[in-house]
């Protein structure tokens, strides 16, 4: 029988990687919960409210996007539009070429991961250096992030020290402080040499045209202090209707993502630097990127576009903890990724149609989501879509339900099977919702078959 790829990946995961992912995500979840419930009497009310405001954004992008673009332009920002990953990358390159720019420093942005921007720029003669410590390590290793907020949750210090040594960043030393200091010294030169700083945006206010960026390391701040040109790649769903809404989302994002009250650097950027300011960009560009988002918007799973990329659903997810982020074969892992990645894939949906199966539907993701996305419902809708599309990888390991449904709609046959199962001392496989018995029995026993016993008891009582 064909097997689910994520389950296979989990089975082969190195024990130390699993331990690192498990511990990191468990700690993240515990911190998040402690902080939210310590600080607020009813965090769930805040989550629902934030979900409702974001749902408004999603369902009104046709008016909010032009409003945001107009506000940004009023602030002196050049706005660009990209429907595909290729267009987004090309827009970045065109801005750089117009300035004769050859070097870019880059803060963490998930949308640039989607478009493989760094690779693209490299092939076009532009040096693109990741500056977030985790992303920098990913870049020198030729690896991929495995968590939205903690990209190297799957790595230990020894692996990092080895790759630092390999890439000329000093003799082997696995002390986290030494690793961080070496990266500081190395990247500082990169910032000062760079022509362009590229960031994403956590939020864009549609009324005032401010980009909001949150980081802890200060790398995006450095990108915007040292370079002369700022490019921001922004997914079209990142809008907030009102600047005042930031008060809600900033409080929820930091607590949900890292268990902090507030991230260390929260930047509000609405244009090129002031004339009197000696440092920072004299030119600012925002590229609004679709890259599959309008597919998600048109689908019955548009709620996923509320996501503010905090990673709380990854941290709490028991499947993520067992399988790690790389199991999801896409930019967005975990519960949010299991919904978002197949949707963003567009025509390639069948390739990722198994992702929505990677869930026990336990609902923990919905319970922690700061914008209350009903992730289990969306996973179920995508499962139905995968079934309709006949995606083989989605079907792997799922028992066929045809015979079962036939039986379960014919009471006589159902009752006969119950008692037959008893007398024949074998389990009628089409009746029990765990038909691949050998898989069940590999790790578990099955209780004794008692088919029909309760119905007989009821009948016997009625006779008395």
């Amino acid at each position: 029988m064909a097997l689910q790829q994520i389950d296979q990946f989990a089975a082969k995961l190195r024990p130390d990687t699993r331990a690192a992912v498990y511990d990191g995500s468990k700690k993240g979840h515990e911190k998040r919960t402690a902080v939210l419930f310590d600080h607020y009497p009813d965090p769930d009310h805040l989550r629902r409210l934030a979900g409702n405001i974001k749902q408004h954004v999603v369902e009104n992008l046709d008016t909010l996007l032009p409003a945001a673009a107009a506000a940004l332009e009023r602030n002196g920002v050049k706005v660009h539009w990209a429907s595909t990953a290729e267009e987004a990358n090309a827009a970045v390159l065109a801005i750089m070429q117009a300035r004769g720019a050859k070097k870019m420093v880059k803060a963490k942005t998930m949308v640039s991961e989607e478009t493989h921007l760094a690779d693209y720029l490299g092939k076009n003669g532009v040096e693109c250096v990741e500056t977030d410590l985790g992303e920098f390590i990913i870049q020198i290793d030729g690896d991929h992030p495995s968590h939205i907020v903690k990209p190297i949750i799957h790595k230990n210090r020894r692996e990092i020290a080895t790759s630092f040594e390999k890439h000329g960043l000093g003799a082997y030393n696995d002390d986290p402080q030494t690793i961080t200091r070496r990266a500081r010294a190395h990247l500082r030169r990169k910032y000062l040499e760079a022509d362009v700083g590229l960031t994403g945006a956590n939020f864009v206010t549609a009324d005032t045209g401010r980009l909001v960026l949150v980081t802890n390391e200060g790398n995006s701040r450095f990108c915007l202090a040292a370079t002369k040109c700022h490019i921001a790649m922004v997914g079209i769903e990142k809008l907030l209707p009102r600047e005042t809404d930031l008060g809600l989302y900033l409080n929820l994002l930091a607590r949900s993502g890292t268990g902090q009250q507030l991230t260390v650097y929260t930047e509000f950027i609405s244009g090129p630097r002031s004339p009197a300011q000696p440092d920072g960009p004299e030119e600012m560009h925002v590229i609004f990127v679709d890259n599959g988002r309008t597919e998600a918007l048109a689908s019955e799973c548009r709620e996923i576009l509320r996501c503010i990329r905090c990673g709380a659903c990854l941290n709490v997810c028991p499947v993520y903890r067992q399988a790690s982020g790389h199991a999801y074969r896409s930019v967005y892992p975990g519960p949010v990724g299991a919904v978002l990645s197949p949707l963003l894939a567009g025509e390639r949906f069948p390739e990722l149609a198994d992702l929505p199966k990677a869930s026990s539907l336990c609902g923990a993701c919905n319970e922690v989501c700061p914008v209350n996305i009903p992730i289990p419902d969306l996973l179920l809708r995508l499962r139905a879509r995968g079934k309709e599309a006949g995606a083989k990888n989605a079907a792997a390991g799922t028992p066929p339900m045809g015979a079962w449904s036939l039986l379960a709609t014919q009471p006589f046959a159902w009752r006969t099977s119950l008692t037959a199962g008893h007398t024949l001392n074998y389990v009628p496989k089409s009746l029990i919702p765990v038909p691949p018995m050998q898989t069940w029995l590999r790790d578990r026993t099955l209780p004794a078959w008692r088919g029909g016993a309760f119905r007989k008891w009821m009948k016997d009582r009625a006779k008395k």
Partner: protein
Amino acid sequence: MSSARDTLLARVKAALAPLPERAPLPDWERELVVMREARGAVDAWTLFSARLAGVNGTPLTSVAELIALLTKSDWRRGYCDPALWAELRPAFDAAGGFTVETTFDRARVDDYQFGITAAVGAIAETGTVVLSDAATSSRLAALAPWTHIAVLRRAQIHLDLPAAIAALPKDPNVVWCTGPSKTADVEGILIEGVHGPGIQVALLLG
């Protein structure tokens, strides 16, 4: 109007067209997100300094305290906002042994052990100092040196985060700094001073 814009917006419109109705925009009370500690009669500086200490920042209330801090670590070379230098210089001169510049030379970015700049505000409930292009004389000077000192006035302190949002200045670059730069990327271990300051001071003057 560019065609790239038209194409993208047309896709958005098409995706939303089948919706029978659109989700409304709820109003909300800012009190909802104000933490208990910041409600009612609270001394803003007391709350601010407790919160700043909570994120390993350093609240100070006098120039003498600042000079003691710098002297203890032998941080002698630094940058100071020219407008603030007039106010601070007498105390530094009296202490002696400091080399302070009032223009930040990016070619010698690692020569500065500390940078003193003016804040435009602060948030008490989070221990945050607010910088802006208008108030902060050099973005790099507030970021590159190991120690950043943000000079703050009592009247500038907002009690809570929503108040600070409401008071966001019309400035192209407003930055909230909440403690020293930090990371937990390597095995979840907290390390301070990643790209920005390892020491974040808020100095209350007046």
